[in-house]
């Protein structure tokens, strides 16, 4: 009945470092279930991350893990995949790590359509460094560096990924745990770049500054404002104000990068 997560976690690593109620733990559970569903061999699975709260995730998992420089997770993961294309590569990271410091690596990994799964845990803020605003902090929201409200427009990670050329883009929230592992499973099985954006809660540095009185308030907010992409097609722009679409947002088939590169090697050796 209960799920055996402990077999996938390094011994002695729990309790983890995340704050009480942080959604990253829920995402980690979803990732473990998805890896089990896909039957991934842990000795042939690389989990790569950069720096940040979300990037602590690989440290807990019993697999081949790589904790790299800030924002450079996609670059390191590309290296791993090019060196050993048979390896399953999963990248984990936060919104700041993926779209600000690592924005360039993120879009070019999407453009190449290299076969990896990138789980972006979007908690709307830089948590670990003290609650500075990130490109995903909602306009008007308060952060430690925007005490009078954030004037910047928001980066939509899923639209960015679609625009940059990722071939599988999906979004869900930490309040929808079954959907997390369903979408990550689809992403792992997809041949090409899969971006799974998980909207997350940060009660410590985001919630308490933005009138969310508790973790539960944040989870209820995520639950109440998530609209499945299928249902959203029948809704007006007014009804969709302030909502976020969930589910598979984009999917297409396009030549995968490591396969294309193998062709280049073949041509070069034949010449």
């Amino acid at each position, binding site marked *: *009945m*209960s*799920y055996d*997560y*402990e077999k996938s*976690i390094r011994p002695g690593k*729990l*309790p*983890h470092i*995340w*704050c*009480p*109620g*942080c*959604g*990253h*733990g*829920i995402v980690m*559970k979803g990732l473990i279930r998805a890896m089990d569903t896909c039957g991934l061999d842990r000795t042939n699975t690389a989990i790569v991350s950069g720096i940040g709260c979300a990037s602590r995730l690989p440290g807990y998992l019993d697999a081949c893990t790589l904790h790299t420089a800030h924002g450079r997770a996609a670059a390191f993961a590309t290296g791993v995949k090019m060196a050993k294309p048979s390896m399953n590569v999963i990248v984990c990271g936060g919104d700041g790590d993926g779209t600000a410091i690592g924005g360039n690596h993120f879009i070019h990994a999407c453009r190449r359509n290299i076969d990896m799964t990138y789980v972006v845990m979007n908690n709307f803020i830089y948590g670990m460094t003290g609650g500075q605003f990130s490109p995903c902090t909602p306009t008007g929201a308060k952060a430690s560096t925007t005490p009078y409200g954030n004037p910047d427009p928001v980066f939509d990670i899923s639209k960015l990924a679609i625009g940059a050329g990722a071939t599988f883009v999906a979004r869900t929230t*930490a*309040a929808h*745990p*079954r959907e997390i592992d369903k979408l990550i499973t689809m992403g792992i099985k997809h041949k090409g770049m899969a971006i799974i954006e998980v909207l997350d809660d940060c*009660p410590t540095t985001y919630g308490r500054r933005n009138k969310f009185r*508790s*973790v*539960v308030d944040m*989870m209820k907010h995520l639950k109440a404002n998530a609209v499945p992409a299928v249902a959203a097609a029948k809704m007006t722009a007014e009804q969709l104000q302030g909502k976020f679409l969930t589910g598979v947002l984009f999917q297409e088939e396009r030549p995968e990068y490591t396969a294309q590169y193998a062709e280049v090697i073949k041509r070069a050796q034949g010449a």
Partner: protein
Amino acid sequence: MSSARLEVIERNCKGCSICVEFCPKNVLEMDMFLVKVARPEDCIKCMQCELLCPDFAIKVHDA
């Protein structure tokens, strides 16, 4: 329906109260910043508490 046995791993629980709030049958309660299984006989094994616990601190077993 066979009854359930809920296990709280106190070492892992940080008392965020997500499981208490999202339990549809009001089985759990907060007790001194930790979760307490107050009414295990009401559990319908929907697994919401186990799925939503970020801290790997609650498990639903078949009794």
